[in-house]
């Protein structure tokens, strides 16, 4: 069981890296994917979906070793969600490459974004270990308050054993930051049960209350329970998570353990990238007239070979002369990760994709890859 969970854990890590992997350099990709590929490959599409959830909602979990795999992963998703949600809640624009439309912003009093995705995540919690893992150390569990039905079923927790666990998991950390924080330590399922019971009085409030989004934070053992310091701590942790993500993005920063130095590296990297762009742009200006438009088909293959080394060469559509629609809907490869949907490969709506991309999808995709595509092919942010 443990080993199985280990596999799942790794797989979940790898899946969370789906979200991340789309925008990271090769080094990160190759270092993380290979051992996990077969495991993740062994997961069906639907379980993949649920693992997405699991990863996404498992934040700040520590304790058991395999659970600790999760720890870095949700931050990826969080980053992605963060990348998505900056735009003042305008979902239609949140379809960039890193977008997780609707992925909730885990932010205090932050009304942007919706909580739908995280609610669905809770619904899919299946790993008991993960839940239990939160208890021993009384770690902060950031669980945005949910008001949807999944929450209710979660709260009731009497549907199935799975839901039971979810209810425990949901209720346990669901302390309202604005109410007086509890310092009660979560020492196991028992305390969880107690929490659940205790929370019942508050439950209705916490259910209704989260029309706004705020974070339920549990005070750590021996730390200040002042709501201010809690919020501050949450903020600091979020910032560190982002820093960690950046650390993964910037090559060669794995050993760095200092915020200032890390920022230095980021600065250098950004500058170097910008210089490269400048340089390449100037070169481009020089050779410009010789570039012909047939290039881009060759180009995409070239890029693929270059970066991924994958044999799955995706041919492009015949030409690039279609009117370029700058709408967000033209961006297909979003790691939308809306796994609550059935991850079969949906028939791509014409309205969503340009024709070329449609060709792209239809070409060179075996059934096995459809799943991933289904997961990532969600464009319309109506979720």
């Amino acid at each position, binding site marked *: 069981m443990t080993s199985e969970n280990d596999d799942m854990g790794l797989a979940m890590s*790898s899946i969370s*890296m789906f979200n991340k992997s*789309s*925008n*990271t350099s090769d080094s990160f990709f190759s270092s993380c*994917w290979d051992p996990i*590929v*077969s495991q993740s*490959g*062994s997961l069906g599409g639907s379980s993949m979906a649920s693992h997405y959830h699991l990863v996404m909602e498992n934040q700040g979990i520590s304790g058991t070793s395999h659970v600790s795999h999760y720890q870095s992963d949700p931050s990826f998703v969080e980053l992605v969600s*963060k*990348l998505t949600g*900056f*735009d003042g809640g305008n979902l239609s624009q*949140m*379809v960039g*490459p*890193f977008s997780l439309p609707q992925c909730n912003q885990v*932010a205090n009093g932050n009304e942007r974004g919706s909580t739908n995705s995280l609610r669905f995540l809770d619904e899919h919690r299946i790993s008991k270990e993960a839940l239990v893992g939160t208890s021993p150390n009384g770690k902060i569990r950031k669980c945005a308050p949910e008001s949807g039905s999944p929450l209710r079923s979660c709260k009731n927790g009497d549907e199935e054993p799975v839901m039971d666990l979810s209810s425990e998991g949901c209720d346990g950390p669901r302390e309202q930051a604005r109410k007086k924080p509890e310092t009660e330590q979560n020492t196991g399922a028992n305390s969880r049960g107690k929490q659940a019971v205790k929370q019942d009085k508050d439950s209705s409030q916490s259910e209704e209350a989260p029309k706004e989004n705020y974070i339920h934070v549990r005070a750590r053992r021996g730390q200040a329970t002042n709501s201010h310091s809690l919020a501050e701590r949450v903020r600091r942790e979020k*910032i560190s998570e*982002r820093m960690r993500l950046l650390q993964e993005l910037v090559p060669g920063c794995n050993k760095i353990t*200092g*915020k*200032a*130095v890390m*920022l230095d590296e*980021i*600065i250098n*990297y*950004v*500058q170097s990238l*910008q210089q490269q*762009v*400048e340089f390449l*742009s*100037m070169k481009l*200006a020089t050779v*410009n007239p010789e*570039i012909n*438009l047939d*290039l*881009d088909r060759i*180009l*995409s293959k070239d890029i693929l070979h*270059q*970066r*991924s080394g*994958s*044999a799955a060469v*995706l041919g492009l559509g015949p030409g*690039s002369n279609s009117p*370029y629609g700058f709408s967000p809907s033209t*961006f*297909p*490869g*979003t790691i939308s990760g809306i796994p609550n949907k059935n991850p079969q490969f949906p028939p791509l709506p014409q309205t969503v994709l340009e024709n*070329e991309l449609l060709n792209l999808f239809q070409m060179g995709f075996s059934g*096995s890859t459809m*799943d991933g595509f289904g997961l*990532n092919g969600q464009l319309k942010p109506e979720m």
Partner: protein
Amino acid sequence: MKEQRRVYPMEPRTIMQTSFAKTYLNYLLPELANIGKPASSLSVDRYVDKEIEKTVRYEVDMALALSAQGFAWSHALEHKLRLNVNNNNQVGKSQSYLSHDGYRNTMPVNHEPATEKLEGNPKRSGTEAAAEEEERLTYLRKLIPGGSGEMMLDDEILLSELGSYVSCLELQVNVLRSVLQLN
């Protein structure tokens, strides 16, 4: 159970990259074709070349902004580019959305103190470190388009935006390099 789905985990990233590349080039290549060169290929008119450079640079940046919808920086970049075009702003050699050309020099590079910090120098107080970080964050705000906006004042948001910006820059560099390699 598909055990040999080694391609599978690569797919999303590849897809995304391809999509970005395609979107990017979809915009860029036609625009570049429109730019063209002056009639005389022997032209040594540096002014014209500079103009072309600027235009190409503009298109390169615009392609980036349009290929990465949904970020604060991409919006800011697009906005800035359009403004610059409208104002016919001429900035130095190549028209760059970067705020100042001398950015390479303005960054205070203090690696030694940072190393000390890594070694656990007890003299380094928390406040100093925080100030250093702030300094760097401020500098990063200058680097990222739209970094001076109020949204970027929030550290979290700034770091998120940086993440996406770095990723997109990487993609852009990759695409541009590929285009040039094929020539």
